[in-house]
């Protein structure tokens, strides 16, 4: 490795890659993340892409980004603002200037900084000469030209050669962060396994970027982020959607069942369907249905026939599935509904994050139609909560809605690989063939679940459906008192789940001035902000809810130990209003944001300080 002028040791650093949708920024981001994981950094990533596939080149609307936060200590969010920004064109610069720290290093592809591109990006003044970049360390690299020269000499045509420029960027970053370039080479060898010409050209461009960085003065200072200490074992990076899919697969294996997923493609949930369809070798079947309703209906059919059945969707799809969820409630069949929340209402912001489907998940059906609702809080723990959703659904014989969101689904983090033998057992209440005195709505008093007899089993023929059924017998019943009993059974069955889930935990002191309350995907920003303030000596703790319906049994007791409660969420206050209905004796302050963006640590700290000062 070449000699470096000075190396700065950092605890953490945030890098943002931004360019046109076709510039390959997601790939470079993945490559840099994997390399960081390989050398033992903790990390969290978040892609930020437009909902159009290839929006007009060079425009702000077409900017695709990928942010990665790496650390020597534990990293909980992709970071509020970047220490290093790579902007492949003026639009990428314009779209991201507000997301970079003062004094950040900004690497631009100077070949795209001309009047034509300024116009497309909507710049009136040349940003390189209007003092707007004063105070930043701007690296003006001729990325397009140098990449094209190297890639064409390696035998690629001009068009293909231009696709290698993301490797020039990667090379620069490997230099800047003192990474072993061999890891980058291995990534490319694996990525383009069957295309040796591409491997050769991309590796050549990677080296070109590295060598360029080595020779220019602007990058004489480089960074080093040490591996995390105390993190032992086997790790991989995983996105929320992949973790969700794997959690369902793991639950099926643990329950001795095969997984069936009935889904319709919808952003940002599609990757769950795409992931499960790859695992037929584990006996999993994924059915791409003709619409959202057919997706869930087929899953209900598969559940009736004895599979671990699931459907995956996002907000608008959940709305379409409402009637079918009611059918699963009524027929008391196990079913996991994964809702990857996005900005709404209607089509809303398909690629942006939000937590505004909570009340839809809790109440968005006709009649008294209770569902278990749980929420994952990090990309990696989507695995655990998908597993848990399946376990609760199978053992309690009722549908479970698992809420994740776009931020978790597309974000990735380092995940310690679990061992299947250490995962909890799942025991569905199946019925033996020819069981005597089988009645379809006979219940287990412990969980109030009915029992699961499936077609093909001799001696258990029975009929279920959406009409109200007689208690125990399962015959159609319009009897008034029977309806009351059955409604209460279904509700009690869901409330009894509280006896089978962990107690609500508090991070930080068990009592004090301010209890910050979050749920689901806001965990990373909340824990970071709360920890920072506690380090400053403030009396502040966090409780993050993963179990929404039912709430953990000790919720009231946890709330009673703090002077003030602040509920933070990406909606207009849905969880706060739910808590008011369940535990009305407390006052719930709110922090709500509804911009399609995750919570930022900086804004949270301002809000927390404001509340703390009022105590």
């Amino acid at each position, binding site marked *: 490795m070449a000699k470096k002028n000075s190396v700065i040791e950092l605890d953490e650093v945030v890098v943002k890659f931004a360019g046109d949708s076709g510039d390959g920024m997601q790939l470079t981001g993945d490559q840099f993340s994997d390399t960081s994981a390989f050398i033992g950094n903790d990390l969290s990533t978040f892609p930020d892409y437009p909902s159009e596939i290839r929006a007009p080149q060079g425009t702000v609307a077409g900017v695709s980004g990928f942010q990665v936060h790496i650390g020597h200590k534990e990293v909980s969010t992709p970071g509020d603002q970047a220490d290093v920004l790579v902007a492949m064109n003026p639009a990428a610069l314009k779209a991201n200037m507000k997301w970079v720290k003062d004094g950040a290093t900004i690497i631009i592809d100077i070949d795209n900084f001309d009047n034509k591109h300024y116009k497309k990006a909507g710049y009136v003044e040349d940003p390189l000469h209007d003092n707007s970049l004063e105070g930043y360390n701007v690296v003006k690299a001729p990325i397009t030209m140098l990449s094209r020269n190297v890639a064409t000499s390696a035998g690629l045509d001009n068009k293909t050669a231009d696709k290698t420029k993301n490797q020039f960027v990667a090379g620069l970053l490997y230099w800047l962060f003192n990474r072993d370039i061999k890891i980058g080479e291995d990534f490319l060898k694996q990525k383009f396994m069957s295309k040796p010409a591409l491997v050769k050209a991309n590796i050549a461009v990677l080296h070109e970027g590295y060598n360029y960085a080595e020779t220019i003065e602007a990058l004489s200072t480089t960074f080093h982020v040490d591996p995390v200490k105390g993190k032992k074992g086997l790790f991989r990076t995983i996105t929320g959607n992949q973790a969700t899919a794997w959690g369902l697969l793991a639950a099926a294996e643990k329950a001795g069942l095969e997984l069936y997923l009935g889904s319709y493609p919808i952003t940002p949930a599609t990757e769950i369907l795409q992931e499960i369809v790859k695992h037929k070798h584990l006996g999993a079947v994924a*059915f791409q249905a003709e619409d959202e309703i057919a997706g869930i209906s087929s899953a209900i059919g598969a559940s009736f026939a004895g599979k671990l059945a699931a459907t995956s969707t996002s907000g608008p799809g959940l709305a379409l599935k409402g009637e079918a969820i009611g059918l699963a409630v009524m027929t008391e069949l196990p079913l996991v509904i994964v809702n990857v929340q996005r900005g709404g209402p209607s089509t809303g912001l398909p690629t942006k994050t939000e937590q505004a489907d909570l009340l839809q998940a809790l109440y968005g059906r006709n009649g008294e139609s209770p569902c278990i609702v749980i929420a994952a809080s990090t990309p990696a723990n989507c695995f655990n909560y998908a597993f848990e959703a399946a376990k609760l659904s199978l053992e309690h014989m009722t549908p479970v809605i698992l809420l994740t969101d776009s931020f978790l689904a597309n974000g990735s983090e380092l995940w310690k690989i679990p061992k299947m033998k250490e995962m909890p057992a799942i025991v569905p209440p199946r019925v033996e063939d020819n069981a005597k005195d*089988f009645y379809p709505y006979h219940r287990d008093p412990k969980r109030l679940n009915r029992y699961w007899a499936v077609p093909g089993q*001799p001696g258990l023929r*029975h009929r279920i*459906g959406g009409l109200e059924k007689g208690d125990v017998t399962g*015959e159609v019943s319009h009897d008034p008192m029977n309806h009351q009993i059955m409604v209460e059974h279904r509700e009690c069955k869901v409330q009894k789940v509280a006896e089978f889930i962990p107690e609500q935990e508090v991070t930080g002191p068990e009592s004090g001035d301010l209890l910050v309350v979050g749920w689901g995907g806001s965990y990373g920003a909340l824990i970071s902000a709360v920890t920072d303030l506690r380090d400053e000596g403030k009396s502040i703790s966090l409780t993050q809810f993963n179990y929404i319906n039912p709430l953990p049994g000790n919720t009231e007791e946890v709330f009673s130990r703090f002077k003030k409660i602040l509920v933070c969420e990406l909606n207009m206050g849905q969880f706060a209003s739910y808590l008011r209905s369940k535990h009305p004796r407390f006052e719930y302050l709110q922090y709500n944001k509804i911009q399609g963006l995750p919570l930022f640590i900086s804004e949270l700290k301002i809000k927390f300080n404001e509340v703390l000062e009022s105590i």
Partner: protein
Amino acid sequence: MATKFEPLSIATKEDFKLGAPVKWCAGCGGHSVLSSVINVLPETGAPKENIVFVSGIGCSSRFPYYINTYGFHSMHGRAMAIASGIKAANPSLSVWIVTGDGDSMAIGGNHFIHIIRRNINVNILLFNNKIYGLTKGQYSPTTPKGSITKTSPEGTIENAFKPGELTMGAQGTFYARTVDSDPKMMREVFAAAAAHKGTSVVEILQNCVIFANQVHKEITGKDVRKDNQIYLKHGEPMIFGKERNRGLMMKCSKMEAVTIGENGITEDDLIVHNAYDVDDTNHYRLVRMELPEFPVAMGVIRAVDSTVFESELYNQVQKAKKESKIKNMDDLMHSGNVFESKG
């Protein structure tokens, strides 16, 4: 209730009878369809615990409550989607869908065409009474244009669907038509539907005694049915009529109803029904025939071989299981880029 021990054995029709009262109106066509189905089930050879009836919403969709099999009375229009999941979960089950003209042609139209396009091996019994019965008398997608109903006091202004056309438009492999008043024909057609590998659509012209009484009387009336129906059999010339002297023949690439013996026409001039013809041109002609120019076509109009969704699916599953080195979740989670941290 299945409270007694039931050995695996060849089922009899008694096995499928439930004690529960059948709550269709007296005189409803549903009763005779139910008894024909119960009669034919033992002939299909399926073990009784492997038979599943799935329905949507509507009068006909109460069917699963009246027959002793596994049954699922689901949502309006969604029986096809539920049944698709059942078959994809367990292809060895014998799945029957009971639906009506509102359930399958209106609210469930999308699922109807897609289950057919996929050719999932189920039998669809489409009760076509050309009216909404359970909601008491509104027009349906198969109600003849101009009909006066509760929601069309001046007569409907919508064109009616022909389920057979939709079936073939969706690349259907099996379509048959029968009537609720002809138990022998129903039995033959249901048996053929059960034997077919793929989605079998059986349109049953059914009488709604309350809201569309005698809607099919021109076709099914005792005095007219022999002249106004043609019961098609594969490999046989297309003959109909009380006197068996009427037939169908091609003239200048158009189908015509003719009389044998007139203008020198003999039986040899008539079209021989080929239900197995992959080319659906003639099947469309048969499906579209209407009174008074033509008799209405009955029997198995189309029955062709094609790939069956769930068989293909499980071929892929078996192949993947055989070829993949990843046999379980531990294997999967340790595949690809794994980093070891020694802390």
